[in-house]
């Protein structure tokens, strides 16, 4: 009883001890903030990685792929049985994306993926990342007639406005088509042998683009005369589209540091894709495609690399279809498991049934293993470093407790003369350490949780005060710092901090317990 009372008295008469609590508080709150942000990142990343990947990827090695996806899917179903919810074949091929900006060709290296639009949505969440509301309901490789998202559909109007997306779709395509016509007209006019007589028109809005003076004189008439040209009658860009592709959001645009988007390609534009055909040595084949939508998984690695197209088109262009059977080769089969199925167990079962030299079978975690492992390692190292902060706080407690024991020497003598045992005196200081640890970690948890809750406001203020961007949304496409609070982690942090406080009070407590009562009473 006296232990608790004295401990309580010491707690609120010795404010210097509370100062040592501050370091515990800071350590605990930092640990909580860092862990919450790290697990928030991990969670978001896993979510995004998994969103675009199916649970298990069944890969044939190489670009040739394997034939008869239906037979393979049959075999997979025989092996894994009930755990399989859905499967879809895909073709993966490295490719080069070429498009023209202001008359200059831009090339990007991409991962070109042929998917079956009917079934692909059943194995992955990719449709949720499309940028047209109708496509999110029912994905399609047909260009839409406008209505693309001008804001991030998850974040709403708080996200930056996407300049250009309001005209995306057919309106943009028609505008581009008209512009190209105008340019061609201007070209022909500059070349005397191609020049055709024309009347001066007024209504064409795109007249001033290339050579304003010439165009102003000639547009209308040329446009009218351009119409009947043979080339245009075969393929009218203004009303027809090439095979549709869905392009990773980051491929389409550059993102400014302020989070603004500058689109280089919009839905409705035509782009060139070059990729190797099947066969050895691979020959490059190129094709023209129409961008029909973007997808934005917010996983920058995917958003800046993936382009989806209908699988038949790729099989056809690459020559992957066996003329005798009509069956197309595929590179891989994406497998979705039913909820609650053991990912690793199914993977191992499949690995046992298919020869490894023919097929690679991996889970989505395996695919991003190094990334997830790196994040995990970073978290672990940060935890160790931050626990050292609390250990430093422990030494502060140690020093201050020694001071208090010296200050209280006489009182310890009194307690002993009144019959208090060494253990009793020791437990005063251990309880003291325990309460300091509890108070410190309690305050730390509160502070940490508050910090996590208002982390974006705090980031904002730090940015205003320092003028330095603390968190660059263009790296991860997070508008906000993701956080995830794990109760288990908080429990461990509290237990660790309290343990350190108690351990730090052991030495002073032992010293107090061993004080000789007579020496202590004589101490003035």
């Amino acid at each position, binding site marked *: *009883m*006296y232990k*608790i*009372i*004295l401990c309580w*008295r*010491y707690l609120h*008469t010795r404010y210097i001890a509370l100062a040592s609590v501050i370091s515990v508080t800071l350590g605990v709150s930092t640990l909580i903030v860092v862990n919450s942000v790290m697990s928030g990142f991990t969670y978001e990343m896993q979510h995004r990685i998994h969103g675009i990947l199916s649970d298990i990827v069944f890969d044939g090695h190489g670009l040739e792929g394997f034939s008869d996806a239906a037979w393979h899917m049959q075999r997979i179903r025989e092996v894994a049985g009930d755990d399989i919810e859905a499967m879809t074949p895909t073709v993966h091929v490295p490719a080069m994306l070429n498009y023209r900006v202001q008359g200059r060709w831009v090339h990007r290296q991409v991962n070109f993926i042929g998917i079956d639009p009917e079934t692909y949505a059943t194995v992955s969440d990719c449709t949720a990342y499309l940028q047209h509301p109708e496509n999110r309901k029912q994905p399609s490789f047909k260009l839409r007639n406008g209505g693309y998202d001008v804001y991030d559909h998850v974040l709403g109007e708080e996200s930056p406005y996407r300049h250009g997306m309001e005209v995306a779709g057919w309106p943009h395509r028609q505008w581009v088509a008209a512009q190209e016509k105008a340019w061609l007209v201007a070209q022909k006019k500059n070349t005397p042998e191609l020049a055709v007589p024309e009347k001066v028109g007024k209504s064409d809005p795109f007249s001033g683009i290339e050579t304003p003076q010439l165009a102003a004189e000639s547009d209308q008439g040329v446009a009218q005369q351009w119409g009947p040209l043979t080339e245009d009658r075969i393929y009218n860009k203004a009303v027809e589209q090439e095979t549709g592709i869905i392009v990773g959001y980051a491929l389409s645009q550059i993102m400014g540091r302020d989070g603004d988007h500058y689109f280089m390609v919009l839905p409705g534009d035509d782009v060139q894709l070059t990729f190797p055909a099947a066969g050895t040595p691979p020959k490059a084949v190129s094709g023209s495609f129409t961008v029909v939508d973007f997808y934005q998984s917010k996983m920058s690695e995917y958003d800046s690399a993936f382009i989806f197209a209908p699988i038949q088109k790729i099989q056809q262009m690459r020559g992957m279809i066996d003329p005798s059977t009509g069956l197309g080769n595929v590179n891989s089969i994406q497998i979705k498991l039913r909820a609650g199925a053991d990912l690793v167990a199914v993977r191992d079962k499949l690995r046992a049934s298919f020869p490894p030299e023919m097929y690679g079978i991996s889970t989505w975690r395996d695919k991003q293993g190094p990334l997830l492992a790196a994040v995990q390692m970073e978290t672990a190292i940060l935890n160790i470093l931050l626990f050292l902060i609390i250990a430093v706080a422990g030494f502060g407690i140690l020093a201050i407790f020694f001071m208090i024991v010296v200050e209280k020497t*006489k*009182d310890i*003598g*009194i*307690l*002993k*003369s*009144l*019959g*208090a*045992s*060494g253990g*009793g005196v020791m437990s005063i200081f251990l309880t003291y350490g325990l309460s300091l640890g509890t108070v410190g970690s309690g305050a730390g948890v509160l502070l940490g949780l508050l910090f996590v809750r208002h982390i974006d406001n705090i980031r904002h203020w730090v940015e205003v005060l320092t003028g330095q961007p603390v968190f660059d949304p263009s790296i991860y496409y997070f508008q906000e710092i993701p956080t995830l609070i794990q109760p288990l982690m908080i429990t461990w942090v509290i237990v660790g901090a309290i343990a350190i406080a108690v351990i730090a009070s052991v030495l002073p407590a032992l010293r107090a317990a061993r004080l*000789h*009562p*007579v020496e202590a*009473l004589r101490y003035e």
Partner: protein
Amino acid sequence: MSNVSPAVRQQQQSKSQQAGSLPGHAHDAAPDTVQASESPVAILAARDVRKNYHKGQNIIPVLRGLDVDIREGEFISIIGQSGCGKSTLLHLLGTLDHPDTGEIHFSGSRVDNIASKKRDQLRNETFGFVFQFYHLLPELTALGNVLLPLMIGHGLFGYLSNRKKFRSRAVELLSMVGLSHRLNHKPRELSGGEMQRTAIARALINGPRVLLADEPTGNLDRKAGQEILNILRNLNVNKNLTIVMVTHDEGIAAQADRTVRLIEGRLE
């Protein structure tokens, strides 16, 4: 001042002198005494106690083969110059310290070598200490200080379940020493005499059998000191409490039943 008549005091003194002359044979002396109700057994005794202090290389002998018998119900004062080892003797009697050689007996059994747990219990329940510098805990009120031995002696639940009873006992003791109006004052708000009276109440809370007082009036003016002595005398007479008082003041020592002198590490 004293409630004890000179005659009684005379008897007590002669009795104790008898006992002192026959160490170890207190039982034999018992039938001869007039007051049979008062047990003649030495409640506290030192046998050939030696104690040295070490100051660097030098060994300073303080007690050199000291013998003393303190009878139950006796008010004895030990007088000596400062630094002669009076306080050391008191600490040895109260088991706060170990003698280098020799034995301390309480109620007929040796207590200087018993387990520390038992010694703690002995200090808590059987001995009451009163010090020159009061030695109250500054964090606690007068009431809290008086309750402290009870808190030490009882576990959390034992204390909490009896706390009303304990509190009323503490209030009673504080009233007895005239401090019923100072219950919730911290020691720094009390005068020296009040602090010493609080210390006496604290020493009495567990109903001790021996009160060990180390210069209880040493830091007080004459009036306050006399009040303290009156309280001690009343306790001795009314409660038959054995009191061992150490002092350097002849006048104060003379108020005890018996006075022994500590000279050169031995009692005379």
